[in-house]
């Protein structure tokens, strides 16, 4: 499925690489003991190191290193047992040191891969170029005072993992799938909470366009887009802008751009000429970061089952389609929920109920899986009630509606509302006889060869029994009675 934008002079392909900043889940900051807690009073999580007081020195937080290695393993990437922290120098009010401690030519994690699960059930590999650790900056607030900006250093020094993809992404949908998958992986790993709206995951997109099959064009970097939807929009809008510029005889200038989601446009932030010269050099306050194989294998042992493996297992063990399995593993909580429902039951039936009925209902109610009124145990019981013929599939849907509303136990609901399937032949026969008696003309039609009319009778009988009659038995008895 290739994504092509038609310009006035022909087709264009887009080329996208993403740089994602993931805030590392850790108690304290990358180089200081200050807390990383979100939402505290401004400037309350600030150590002497974070405020860059004279003579203060950074000491690397081993937990952040472990989290980065864990993420690297989750991305099937090369772990660099020796990496180097470097200073990225620039002046800004929310950067107390006047430099950000980052990693430059020797990152902690090298090349890896992310498998995208596309909406049509297909997959695509996107290369990871690197993952490196770096400090976050503080927060500038320009709306607190008419004359001055305010600075909150709570975030200053919090550990980030910058994850850089190869320019392998070819459509906004792929960019969306990449971010969704990356977020799933870090959430599975517990290395980043992936909340883009809180800024704990932020994305820069490098976008260029080219004629299909040609070399890369000049790229522009769109900074700090804060939701997956906006990233997808920004890429499309930026690609269209670039095509317009080129087709109008212009040239793309390498620059940093901002996406304005209100106006639906990207605009220039700073040109290459105005770009900072960051004067990277190895941070002399820190020794090279060195660890051994044992350190890595310890972390490897703690790795949970990741989405790709889980998906493969669901397909293999439960016979699910790639699409269904992909939907279920997209969030760990969804997969966990599904596994409880599927345990000891028909995996496909369970998947149908979870995906079609439950997710449908949750989406409609705008509720997350964690807040689902229907517990996995109860949904499992509902499926059992269908399997053992206590209720029909149709009645099950009604029961489910009630469960969504009340959060109730399906067995109790069926009991209280008297929804048990009628399997008593006498009761069903009585209903059939009544319908036959009321519709002699239709009986004749069937006898005359119009067997399709049997379905109508089934419907009438079901209606008469409030849907509780066992549909199979209704069918059989009708056949016997009318066609003898």
């Amino acid at each position, binding site marked *: 499925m290739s994504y092509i934008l038609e310009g006035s002079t022909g087709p264009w392909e887009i080329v996208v690489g993403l740089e994602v900043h993931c805030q590392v889940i850790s108690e304290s900051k990358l180089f200081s003991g200050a807390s990383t807690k979100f939402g505290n009073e401004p400037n309350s999580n600030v150590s002497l190191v974070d405020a860059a007081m*004279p*003579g203060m*020195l950074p000491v690397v937080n081993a937990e952040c290193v472990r989290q980065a290695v864990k993420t690297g393993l989750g991305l099937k990437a090369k772990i660099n047992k020796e990496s180097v922290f470097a200073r990225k120098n620039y002046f800004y*009010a929310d950067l*107390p040191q006047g430099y950000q401690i980052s990693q430059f030519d020797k990152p902690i994690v090298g090349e890896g891969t992310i498998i995208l699960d596309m909406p049509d059930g297909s997959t695509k590999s996107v290369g990871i170029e690197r993952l490196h650790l770096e400090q976050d900056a503080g927060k500038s607030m320009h709306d607190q005072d008419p004359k001055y900006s305010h600075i909150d250093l709570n975030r200053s020094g919090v550990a980030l993992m910058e994850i850089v993809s190869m320019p392998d992404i070819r459509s906004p949908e792929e960019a969306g799938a990449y971010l969704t998958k990356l977020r799933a992986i870090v959430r599975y790993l517990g290395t980043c909470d992936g909340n883009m709206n809180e800024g704990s995951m932020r994305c820069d997109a490098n976008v260029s366009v080219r004629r299909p099959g040609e070399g890369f064009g000049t790229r522009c970097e769109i900074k700090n887009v804060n939701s997956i939807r906006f990233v997808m929009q920004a890429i499309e809008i930026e690609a269209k802008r670039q095509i317009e510029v080129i087709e109008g005889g212009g040239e793309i200038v390498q620059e940093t751009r901002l996406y304005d989601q209100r106006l639906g446009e990207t605009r220039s932030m700073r040109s290459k000429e105005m770009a900072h010269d960051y004067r990277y050099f190895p941070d002399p306050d*820190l020794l090279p970061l060195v660890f051994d194989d044992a350190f890595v294998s310890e972390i490897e042992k703690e790795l949970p089952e990741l989405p790709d493996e889980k998906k493969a297992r669901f397909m293999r063990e439960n016979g699910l389609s790639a699409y269904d399995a992909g939907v279920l593993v997209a969030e760990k909580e969804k997969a966990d929920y599904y596994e409880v429902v599927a345990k000891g039951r028909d995996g496909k039936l369970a998947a149908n109920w979870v995906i079609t009925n439950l997710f449908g209902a949750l989406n409609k109610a705008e509720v997350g899986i964690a807040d689902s009124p229907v517990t996995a145990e109860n949904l499992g019981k509902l499926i059992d009630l269908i399997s053992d013929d206590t209720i029909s599939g149709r009645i099950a849907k009604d029961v489910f509606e009630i469960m969504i509303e009340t959060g109730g136990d399906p067995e109790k609901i069926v009991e209280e509302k008297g929804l048990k399937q009628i399997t008593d032949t006498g009761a069903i026969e009585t209903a059939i006889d009544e319908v036959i008696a009321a519709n002699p003309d239709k009986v004749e039609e069937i006898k005359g060869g119009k067997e399709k009319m049997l379905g109508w009778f089934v419907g009438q009988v079901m209606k008469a029994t409030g849907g509780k009659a066992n549909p199979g038995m209704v069918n059989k008895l009708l056949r016997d009675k009318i066609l003898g």
Partner: protein
Amino acid sequence: MTDLTKLTLADARDGLAKGDYTSVELTEAHLKSMDAHRNLNAYITETPEKAMEMAKASDAKRAKGEAGKMEGLPIAVKDLFCTEGVQTTAASHILEGFKPEYESTVTTNLFGNGAVMLGKANLDEFAMGSSNTSSYYGNVVNPWKDKSGKDLVPGGSSGGSAAAVAANMALAATGTDTGGSIRQPASYCGIVGLKPTYGRCSRWGIVAFASSLDQAGPMTKTVRDAAIMLGSMAGHDAKDSTSAPIGVPDFEAALTGDIRGMKIGIPKEYRVDGMPEEISKLWDDGVAMLRDAGAEVVDVTLPHTKYALGTYYIVAPAEASSNLARYDGLRYGQRVMDEGDSLDDMYMKSRAAGFGKEVQRRIMIGTYVLSAGYYDAYYNKALKVRRRIYQDFEGAFGQVDAILTPTAPSAAFAIGDNEGDPVKMYLNDVFTVPASLAGLPGLSVPTGLSSEGLPLGLQLIGKPFDEETVLRVGGVLESAANFTAKPAGQEG
């Protein structure tokens, strides 16, 4: 009663232990000496009240039988060490009025061992200089005079520390050494100065100049004093990732006076063109003294020595340009801004007003050598040369136990000399910079006088973390040289 300011640290320690005098008396005598020598401008901030408080507390501690290794001994602290509640300026206008809420690890160790702080010693601004003329708080005057009687520089950057010790305004002082800032002023002021191995003393709480080179060390009247004081400064510190996780030996115990059979290296590359005759002779005399004491003198080669100064003046400014970025007028120190100024305006005005010329020069050099397009030609190449310089020493130390060189190419010069020519000023560090780049311990011991009657020092360079050998050989050199000259007015 003897003049308590003329005691060595070791003598004062022993006198206190015997109860000959108290820390209060010792401290009072030094405070009086500070009053008498204020013309030397050795201190930026004097802390007489704090000193008396500490002395009293120290005497009380001693009375309880809890005396530490430096108990009751009054010292000067270079104003590059952050001291809790006491103004810490790094001799810069930009930090004027800055009172840290924390105490550097080295001063914490010293005070924990009982040392008493007399005040914060003057230095070159941000420790950048070899003459102590770049201090915002005025230059320091060397207590020594040449025959013309002109005011001379004390050397730098630890010029205030060196002058304070030479003029008996402190029993000893802390210094820091990045390219020679302990050893060169020690040589110029006729005292002992030891730059330990990089990583021996914690850098935590010391205002950073060049992080990969900065190292704190003692500046004292004798080699024994240096051994005592280093023992109270050193030690692993988890707060400094570059601090070495090793124990602190008993440095004083290393002073056996016996160097028989030891091999002392003489690097031919240090005999630079145009080396003054008296420096050459001083060096030869030193060689003879060590040989007479039973050491074997061996010629060694350090072929990359000639690149050391150039390498240093790339690496140190590069790190400084980044280390000094935090002085931006925002969180502490001086801020200069006018109504309606932008953030950039504030940066430029605060830094232009806050930093002196030499600091600005080094920030610009450092920024340049790290810039895109120049990084490989300068900074990266400098790192490679630095590695070679280290390997030179590694090779030499395969043959010898210590290396003997002059400390500086000249005696102290007149204030104002070399001011117009930064490169000439930088040449003062030619013999001290290689050991700094290699992270090795270097000890300057006064061994003779120039034709002008000014002190001259010899430098001993040792293997990594082998301060003990350096001190042992230094002790022998000190005894043999029997350097008893004092600046006018300080004669014992």
